[in-house]
């Protein structure tokens, strides 16, 4: 019988080692699943409305923005009722913002566990990402009901929402890894994040449409990978449109680069997490 040999060396940054890191993660997939289930089951313990919060969160945001942007200020929505218009983008946005803020706070919250047992540390932020994804799926059902209510047909083109959501998940994973690793060393990350997320939301076509962004600013505006994702998601579901390939490809490539870099850096940083947490 050949014994597995494990060599422990000082931390080093290497993209090449990512294959073995990923293999380790696959080996611990049951822990990732268990932690994700834990997120879902513990979060709503001792709360009256329980799982309804997953739906209530984007729904209430939608109500607030509908009152502001369709009654106080008229926002151009190209003919779509504002409630559906806003909700269809608030849905992926809530996935992004909840996943990112959860993951950022995740590692310090588990400092006790981290200092006692070894497991691939990315499991903690990833479990928050997956839990946010589960919430997203639940809240998605409400979107279908809303569309039915406003008589918006669901066409085959709606399937284009899937690549948009996958791209979003990749990007969320990357940013979550970076933000959570930074938070371990500098708690400033957690302080800055709510503000950062608010800014980011207004730099993304969530509560307004992309067509209201001045053409002259678009080159700058489109640097935000969430722009292509949100536009594709909303266009596909509400209008059955095929994505703007240039925009979506840009988003996807930025997301992939960010996530690959983030994973390499996270694995480099994780070996000293417990020393500084």
């Amino acid at each position, binding site marked *: 019988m050949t014994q597995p*040999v*494990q060599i422990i*060396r000082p931390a080093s940054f290497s993209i090449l080692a990512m294959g073995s890191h990923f293999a380790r993660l696959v*080996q611990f997939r*049951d*822990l990732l699943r268990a932690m994700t289930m834990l997120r879902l089951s*513990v979060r709503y313990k001792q709360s009256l409305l329980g799982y309804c919060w997953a739906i209530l969160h984007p729904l209430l945001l939608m109500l607030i923005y509908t009152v502001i942007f369709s009654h106080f200020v008229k926002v151009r929505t190209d003919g779509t009722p504002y409630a559906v218009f806003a909700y269809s983008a608030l849905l992926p946005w809530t996935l992004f913002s909840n996943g990112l803020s959860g993951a950022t706070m995740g590692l310090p919250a588990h400092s006790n566990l981290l*200092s*006692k047992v*070894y497991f691939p540390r990315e499991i903690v932020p990833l479990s928050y990402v997956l839990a946010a994804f589960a919430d997203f799926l639940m809240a998605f059902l409400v979107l279908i009901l809303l569309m039915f209510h406003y008589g918006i047909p669901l066409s085959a083109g709606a399937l284009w929402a899937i690549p948009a959501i996958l791209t979003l998940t990749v990007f969320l994973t990357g940013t979550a890894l970076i933000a959570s690793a930074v938070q371990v060393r500098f708690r400033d990350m957690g302080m800055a994040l709510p503000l950062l997320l608010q800014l980011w939301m207004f730099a993304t076509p969530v509560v307004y449409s992309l067509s209201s962004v001045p053409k002259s600013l678009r080159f700058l505006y489109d640097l935000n990978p969430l722009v292509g994702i949100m536009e594709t998601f909303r266009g596909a579901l509400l209008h059955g449109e095929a994505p703007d390939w240039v925009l979506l490809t840009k988003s996807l490539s930025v997301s992939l680069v960010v996530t690959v870099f983030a994973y390499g850096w996270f694995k480099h940083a994780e070996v000293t997490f417990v020393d500084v947490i």
Partner: protein
Amino acid sequence: MKDVEFHNVSKRYQRPAADPGRDRPPSILERCLRWRDRRNDFWALRNVSFSVKHGEALGIIGHNGAGKSTILKLLTSITAPTSGEISICGRLSALLEIGSGFHQDLTGRENAYLSGVTFGMSRNEVSAKLPGIIEFSGVGDFIDVPVKRYSSGMYLRLGFSIAAYLNPDILLLDEVLAVGDVAFQAKCLNRIQDLRKAGKTIIFVSHDLAAVERLCDRTLLLSKGEIVYEGSPRDATLEYHRRSLQTPEVPAHLQDASRVIECTHFSYRSTPESEDHTVRTGEPMVVEVAYVAHETVPDVVFNVYLYWPSGYLCTQLTTGDQGCTIEKGAGRVTFSCPVLILRPGLFLVDIAAERYPEVLDWRHRCAILRVDEGPIVLGDLHMPHEHRIHRTDTASKEHFRTEEAVSFDGQA
């Protein structure tokens, strides 16, 4: 075959910047500048090299802060070394601080799954082992109750059961034996002995020197991040005590003794005539304490206290409660024990001259009494005894039907 090997391993921690003589905390700018300030470095381990053979039980002892836990953290990949290399051959599992990974709101069963997969098992493996875990822990129906409702004993038993069923090649042990009731400790020790017999490699890090001596083949003594001694557990514990004797922490209430009588010397041998200082279990022992009295004092009592290595008082030699008058000048007190009942091992010695309730002089941990092997003793003490075997006419159980005894088949 080497299961675990450390090659010049060092580990550096950064101490939080502390600047004596200044009240306000460092500003952001100062903190940024100091981010890599080497003056705050603290080396938990320095060029440590050792190896553990397959099937060997290695003990690691040392005072607090010697680097024991750092070695455990490195072995379990919880943190990485600053330099050097560690190679581990085989599946390693750690029994550290039982139940620390439990989640309060989840049931025992859910926590068992969570702990199992945290240690790298698959769900199916945990499922297969769960009945055994529940059985060993004895929590019974409570397995489906949130662990926050558990008694601390149940909490502990479930934690140990999960860890004990991991079936590793290399087992790391922490101070786990220090917790729990006696029955639980015995159960843990049995399980560990089983693992040893099954040829598992064991690394045991502990303050419990007696347990280290019992379990280990070889022991490392760490001090300030370096290996200062390597050898048999018995010699390593002796060395450990020698080192701690150099800086005994004298309890505050003993420091202001008047010292009108000073105890100057302590020695022991097996008979007054013998030259060397070897005493053995079951043989006689003579202990001598030399003193100098600066004035004549009435009602003086001399005491010699013997402590277990753990620091608990084991027994005492005394000149009696009444005390006697000690004339001014030098002298010596001789205690004679016809049979030494202590089992082989090390005992810490305190010597005191007292005039109740006043302490005249107290020499805290001033010597070590080393008892060598005489007749083989199982248990804590050697009780001097005789025996006689004789025939009886009837095979009666009458003898045991007294208040002090129970017959062997349990019918009292």
